[in-house]
């Protein structure tokens, strides 16, 4: 087929440096939508087939291949389920993409503050009593959004939440970004579709083995797929990348064919690593022993999170040491924990290296833990809706130490995990300021504000505070 359509590199001929970098086969797959290749904005042939196969593999009524990452899938869920002025019940430790969607459509968040584990400092799942209370106080809410699992592998009682929500005519949206393997492994926490949730999204590029930025949105029969497609098209690119689409399709196939054995091996490696790390002393690699039947209803055994404060080091410090001294790149390092993503691509010998490196770090760098901040999560004080605050008249670039008591119009968060410490419309407190300064000092990468150095924040102009 002779290309007289975009892309302009024409199978790489016009960009030899790109071909050298990525390889001929990769560049040749980069084509435009055309009749035989279908169109992601309106799939009727091959893409539709791929989506049907994906729906079957995941046990969903419909599946949508997404090229904007799970961010785009999460936002589609929020934008499908709600509109301006409507309420969504959600835990405060959501990914930034959720609150971004609320800035876009003007819906109102009703935050359920998660419990925090006092020792580990991490936010937990949603307690049933908290969900019941939120529903009681907001019977007109249109949806409940759940993180399942959370970044740290904590799962809520999804089945019961679905029952409660449906009794009150609310949709259940599940951010399953970290839970792709729930659909394919044995003995895994309950998946959203199996729990009867209405919509969920899985990051195929996390545990699914697909290319970065590729994701899948799943819906149950309660949600009209035609409407979902229209919502997706509100913001989706019209030039969807076939590299990502091909990657999604082939990875879906791999998961369907050999996901079970692959994830059994992953669980074995993670459990082995946990056992070995817990032999070192001071580190705590937590596992299913945390399950308490409510705020920690279940635990994702493939997640390897290590609590580091008792070695006298912040999680981010261990994260940096592992990278700089031992050539080991972890997924996350925050105030008290560091997290390794164990996946289908790992081998035992790398696990041995990780465990041994943790031994060596303790031998070389152990110190007293006094003075270390010990919790990740601070209860926010929500004064205005995110959309109102984002677009309200602002006072710009106030030095952060002078913002105590003001209402923030920006996001502030560490990335990863991308969970907002501050979101638009929330009041800034001294505790939050101290936390931000501490995180910066320890080396967390921070993002959100207009000021790239996070030394200044934008806040609501005084006159508009009520």
């Amino acid at each position, binding site marked *: 087929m002779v290309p007289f359509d975009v892309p302009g590199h024409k199978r790489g001929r016009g960009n030899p440096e790109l071909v050298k970098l990525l390889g001929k086969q990769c560049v040749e797959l980069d084509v435009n939508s055309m009749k035989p290749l279908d169109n992601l904005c309106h799939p009727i042939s091959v893409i539709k087939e791929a989506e049907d196969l994906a729906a079957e593999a995941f046990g969903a009524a419909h599946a949508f291949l997404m090229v904007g990452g799970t961010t785009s899938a999460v936002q589609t869920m929020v934008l499908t389920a709600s509109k301006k002025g409507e309420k969504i019940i959600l835990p405060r430790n959501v990914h930034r993409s959720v609150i971004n969607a609320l800035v876009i459509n003007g819906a109102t968040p009703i935050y359920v503050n998660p419990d925090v584990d006092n020792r580990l400092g991490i936010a937990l799942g949603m307690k049933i009593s908290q969900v019941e209370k939120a529903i009681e106080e907001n019977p007109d809410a249109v949806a409940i959004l759940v993180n399942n699992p959370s970044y740290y592998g904590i799962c809520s009682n999804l089945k019961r939440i679905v029952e409660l929500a449906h009794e009150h005519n609310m949709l259940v949206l599940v951010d399953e970004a970290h839970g792709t393997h729930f659909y394919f492994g044995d003995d895994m926490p309950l998946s959203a579709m199996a729990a009867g949730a209405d919509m969920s999204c899985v990051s195929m590029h996390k545990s699914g083995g697909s290319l970065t930025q590729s994701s899948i949105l799943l819906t149950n029969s309660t949600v009209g797929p035609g409407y979902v497609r229209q919502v997706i098209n509100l913001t989706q690119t019209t030039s969807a990348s076939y590299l990502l689409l091909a990657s999604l399709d082939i990875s879906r196939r791999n998961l369907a064919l050999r996901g079970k054995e692959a994830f059994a091996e992953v669980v074995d490696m993670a459990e082995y690593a946990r056992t*070995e790390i817990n*032999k*070192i002393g001071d580190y705590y690699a937590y596992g299913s022993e945390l399950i308490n039947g409510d705020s920690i209803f279940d635990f994702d055994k493939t997640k390897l999170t290590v609590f580091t404060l008792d070695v006298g080091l912040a999680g981010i410090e261990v994260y940096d040491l592992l990278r700089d*001294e*031992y*050539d080991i790149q972890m997924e996350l390092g925050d105030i008290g924990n560091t997290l390794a993503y164990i996946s289908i691509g790992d081998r*035992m*010998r790398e696990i*041995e*290296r990780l*465990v*041994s*490196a943790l*031994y*060596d770090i303790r*031998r*070389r760098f152990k110190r007293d833990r006094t003075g270390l901040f010990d919790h990740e999560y601070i209860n926010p004080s929500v004064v205005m809706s995110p959309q109102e605050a984002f677009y309200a008249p602002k006072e710009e670039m106030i030095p952060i130490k002078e913002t105590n008591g003001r209402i923030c119009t920006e996001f502030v968060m560490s990335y990863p995990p991308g969970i907002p410490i501050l979101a638009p419309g929330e009041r800034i407190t001294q505790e939050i300021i101290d936390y931000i300064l501490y995180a910066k000092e320890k080396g967390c990468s921070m993002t959100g504000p207009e000021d790239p150095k996070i030394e200044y924040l934008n806040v609501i102009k005084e006159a508009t505070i009520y």
Partner: protein
Amino acid sequence: MEFWFSELHTENVKLSIKVNKHIFSEENDHNRIDIFESPEYGRVLTADGYIVMTERDEFIYHEMMTHIPMAVHPNPRKILVFGAGDGGVVRELLKYPDVERIDMVEVNVGVVEAAKKYLPFSASGLDSPKVTIYTQNALRYVRHIVGEYDVIIVDSAGFYGPGESLLSREFYGSCYKALREDGIMVNQHQSPFYADDRTETQKAHKRIVECFPISRVYQAHIPTYPSGYWLFGYASKKYHPVDDLDAKRWNDLGIETNYYTTNLHKGCFALPAYVEKLLAKVESIR
């Protein structure tokens, strides 16, 4: 008949050895082992196509790995050996009557079995009661041991594949911890001549310098290894490799060797200028 084994030393250089017979071949999860019989070098052991040792010149490698640390340490009794599946290092260690215990960690049990069967000149000591062989990952074995060994010998066949872990910071740190306060560690340090080998020499040296207060490199001539010029690393917590050598004490032990002498010991730490320079490059003190 022209039947030759060849090994590429670089893209442009290869060594070929004429072969009489291909005696053994086995592939497992770790690597592929082959053993040949050759007119010039006798029995040759290869792993993934790289020569590990030959009957004719193995004495050089095994003596230099073993006697350098054993001669310096005043009283070595407990020895830890990594790799060494062919048994040569253990054979040399058993020449010391005061050695009480040799723990050998060789992840590939196939090498040990093949050595016992086809390389008796090297593997004879592996059945000694003083020797315990552990078939497990090196890091897993050593990381929880504290202050137990006098000498650690890291006899790895190259730093690729399973040997990668033996080039890591955490491995050397764990060995440091596993040694007693006057312990010595030696390892194979590749070669400074060809570019790919040189990178590994520098990597190994850098990581060891960061872990041990005394770290020196020594050399030997090994005809069947790339460029014939090979390096070893000596690292210790207390003893300088040359200044603390008591030559008389070692010579009085009456141990028979064919390459090592106490004079050679003193000389082998004197390196060519280009080698000194490439080592100095990675020695920046933090």
